[in-house]
């Protein structure tokens, strides 16, 4: 009786392992990294635009219900800037998964740590500025891991975007207009070499 149970358990475990293995293979082969990156960016860009328009622009500024500020934690009713909100999202995602990472960068960053660092970032950010409306896709190896890297234009969608960047004392560029590409969203997906 015990032997029967043992063989039954082994057979079941094997079946589960095979099924899981097959499922994993299918998933790995089934998602094109560009489609994944484009989809992720669609969510990011929508949330970012909505936060800027529906929260910061509507409740901040002249309305005065909230105070959007870089040092929002020091203010009563302080609210994170859209770029900070975006970064908080990226950091929270990084705590949940290493299946992808993303960041907001610029050729004219207020915080110099957000300037492009890798060759793909530098090429990609220049490409989206030179080719408005287009994305840049590339591959790179960082820390021994190969990545599919996509760079998407981050366009000024509301007056708070251009006002803040044009007035900030650390901004290297002060002539942004609505519709300008102010920077880029860099999405990275680890891929097999």
């Amino acid at each position: 009786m015990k032997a029967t149970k043992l063989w039954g358990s082994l057979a079941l475990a094997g079946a589960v392992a095979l099924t899981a293995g097959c499922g994993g293979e299918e998933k790995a082969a089934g998602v094109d990294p560009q489609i994944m990156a484009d989809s992720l960016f669609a969510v990011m860009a929508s949330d970012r635009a909505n936060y800027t328009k529906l929260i910061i622009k509507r409740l901040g500024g002249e309305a005065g219900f909230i105070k959007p500020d870089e040092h929002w934690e020091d203010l009563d009713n302080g609210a994170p800037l859209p770029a900070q909100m975006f970064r908080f999202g990226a950091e929270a995602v990084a705590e949940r998964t290493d299946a992808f990472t993303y960041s907001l960068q610029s050729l004219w960053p207020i915080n110099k740590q957000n300037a492009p660092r890798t060759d793909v970032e530098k090429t990609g950010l220049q490409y989206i500025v030179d080719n408005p409306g287009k994305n840049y896709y590339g591959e790179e190896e960082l820390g021994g891991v190969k990545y599919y890297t996509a760079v998407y234009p981050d366009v000024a969608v509301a007056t708070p975007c251009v006002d803040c960047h044009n007035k900030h004392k650390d901004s290297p560029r002060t002539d942004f207009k609505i519709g300008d590409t102010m920077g880029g969203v860099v999405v990275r997906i680890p891929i097999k070499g």
Partner: protein
Amino acid sequence: MVKKVTLFYSLLTVAVVALAGIWANELFLEPEKQTFLVGETSHGHHQIELACGTCHQSPFGGGEVLQDACMGCHAKELKAAHDSHPKSKFTDPRNADRLEQIDARYCVACHREHQPDITRDMGVTLATDFCVACHLDIAEDRPSHEGMGFDTCASAGCHNFHDNRALYEDFLLQHVDEPDMAATPVIAAMQAYVNAQQPAPKQAPAPDYPEASFQVTEIEKQWLHSAHATEDSNCSACHGEGEQFKAQPDALVCVDCHQPQAAGFLIGKHGMRLAVKREAAESYPLNPSLKALMQPDARLLTPMTPAQGRLPFKADVHGESLTCNSCHGAHEYSLGTSASVDACMGCHDDGHTNQYKASPHYAQVLREAAGEVPAGSGVTCATCHMPKVESEEEPGVFHTLHNQNDNLRPNEKMVRSVCLDCHGLQFALDSLADPALIDNNFQGRSKVSIESIQMAIERVKE
């Protein structure tokens, strides 16, 4: 000859087995494992360094296990400090090349323990110019920094790696041209705390101690004049009743009613030994349940004593155990300067402490006691080292932060929580940057001038 050899090997075997047994006993059964300490730990951990499992939660764990232990105790304070360099800043693959120099995802990259020969202030074990790894080109963005050595970034009043709440540019600019002393210097949180104090109960209940258990006349008198003279904190609340009665209640009996205070005490240097449980993973604050620590059998270590400390302490108290009663007394339940000055000076024996009663801060305490200045004007040891803080759970309610280290290192952490209530930012930064002035407890003026505010002004002009 054969017999001699046999005897030798027999004795050798017995010696090896005996030694292994002694070591195994210490490793598996003794609470403190002196034999296995591979090097002294820093000033922040030496109190619990012999309770290996507190940090080394698993014998097979690597960096992640240690990191979990670090964050289990320090995550909350780092978050409260708006940590300028959290792990999340370094996890993006774009920083892979930087991590090859300093893997800043892990605390131990900068704070390696058991390395006494290279451990500096704040338990830092990296070379002093570590900022260069990421900020090599800072002078391109900040011309004022041209020519500054990278070993000066963390100088007093300039930058801290984690806590820059009193040092960031916009904050500096908000405090330009402030007077050295406020017109009415009052510690706002202390004033709020004092104003919120409940009046003493009009009629105390009859004390419910067991008849003829011990001589209680003096104790009863002390209790009747304390805030504990209520039904809820009658004798039995601490001593138990019936068969549960204890003449000497446990060291942590106060925890039950004073959890916010106990939480700070148990994470600070005074109380952290009492926070280590036999099951290390259950230790506070890894496991925030405080009541479990009230079981003496659950705790691994004895209370801290001055003899175990690394600071100068008075010789006659070296053997005293540090519990709530050490500062507050058992029945008179001391507050005021008894707990916030006398208790500190009763043990600490360094220049800063011994100069306190000659300091302008103590003069304010005397003026407050004489009714010459408003409540909250006096500055005791505890005003700075155990400040009143507003409860996160109950806004408007203030309690004493009993972690004496919370705002001490680096000392700019004290600026916002204490100094700025009475002093201008420039005055405060200058004072905290002068070791001699700190040693004589702020008698006189600082001989150091911090340029941070002026540099922030110049930056705006650029």
